[in-house]
């Protein structure tokens, strides 16, 4: 009993230390999505003007795909764009996009300058569909499985590390099952 009393402070220190150690490794800005493992929200977005394919829930069934939320005014989107392009062109993963609160002309010009790897793009002019997806900061990227369920979400620009460590292994696993 006595000895327990002497160990108690040390024990408390270890517990608090562990809580801080793991707590500080997490990014407080990253908000866990409630939509993980749930079907994508019901939606249908029109295409950008002059194009014929928009984006709707039905497009997200059948294959493992990525949905990238981007905007021409979003600087990190430009930073991640080469990574998205490589994933779509060399990685063989269809990437679709939600163009978030953008002017159509700006979006089209942006795609012309930076390249357009997207299988289809839905124009979300008022940002309502993005809200249904729980988007709170562009860019965001969602991984959708064959059944049309959201399996992973990345907030912020994709980095080679995220692609290598998270997305590619998950795609491989989802394609198997």
């Amino acid at each position, binding site marked *: 009993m006595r000895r327990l009393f002497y160990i108690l402070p040390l024990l408390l220190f270890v517990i608090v230390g562990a809580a801080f150690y793991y707590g500080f490794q997490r990014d407080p800005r990253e908000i*866990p999505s*409630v939509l993980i493992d749930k079907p994508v929200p019901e939606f249908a977005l029109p295409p950008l003007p002059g194009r014929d394919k928009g984006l709707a829930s039905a497009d997200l069934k059948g294959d493992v795909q990525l949905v990238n939320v981007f905007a021409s005014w979003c600087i990190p989107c430009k930073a991640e764009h080469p990574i998205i392009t490589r994933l779509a062109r060399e990685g063989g993963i269809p990437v679709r996009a939600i163009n978030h609160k953008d002017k159509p002309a700006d979006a089209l010009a942006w795609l012309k300058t930076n390249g357009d790897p997207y299988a289809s793009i839905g124009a979300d002019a008022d*940002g309502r569909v993005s*809200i249904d997806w729980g988007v709170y*900061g562009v860019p965001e990227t969602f991984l959708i499985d064959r059944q049309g369920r959201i399996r992973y979400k990345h907030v912020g620009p994709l980095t080679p590390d995220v692609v290598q460590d998270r997305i590619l292994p998950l795609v491989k696993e989802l394609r198997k099952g």
Partner: protein
Amino acid sequence: MKALILALATAALIAAGPAAHAVQPEEVLPDPKMEERAREISKELRCLVCQNQSIDDSNAPLARDLRVIVRERLKAGDSNDQVMGYVTDRYGDYVLLKPPFKATTLLLWVGPFVLFAGGAVAVALYLRRRQGPGGTDTAPLTDDERRRLEALLGKDGV
């Protein structure tokens, strides 16, 4: 003097102005009762961009959109809880500035009380032990001890 009056007048104007919040005139609902409810709900919802402001306080575009959605849901006849549910379905409990009471937040809500109870028990045990079983701090002096004490005190002449 002129400067002082000007400064005081400015201060008075600022103080008399409306409390700082981000709701824009065009967002306000015609029905004041419903607007009141909208404000109440907005104050409970966290702005996801700034995170330490409610959507009622925040000027972020997303906060604005959510304020508009809150008002739309109310106009559609939703109850306050239904509106909250609409937002938490998309953004999770994280958007609630007051965390809900449930299994995952049990520690958060009950933790302080458990710690307090634990402390109270520890203090009670400590006090009881210090007092000893007889109720006094120390055993009374034996006759032998008393004699020795008297001898010592007497020797010093105190």
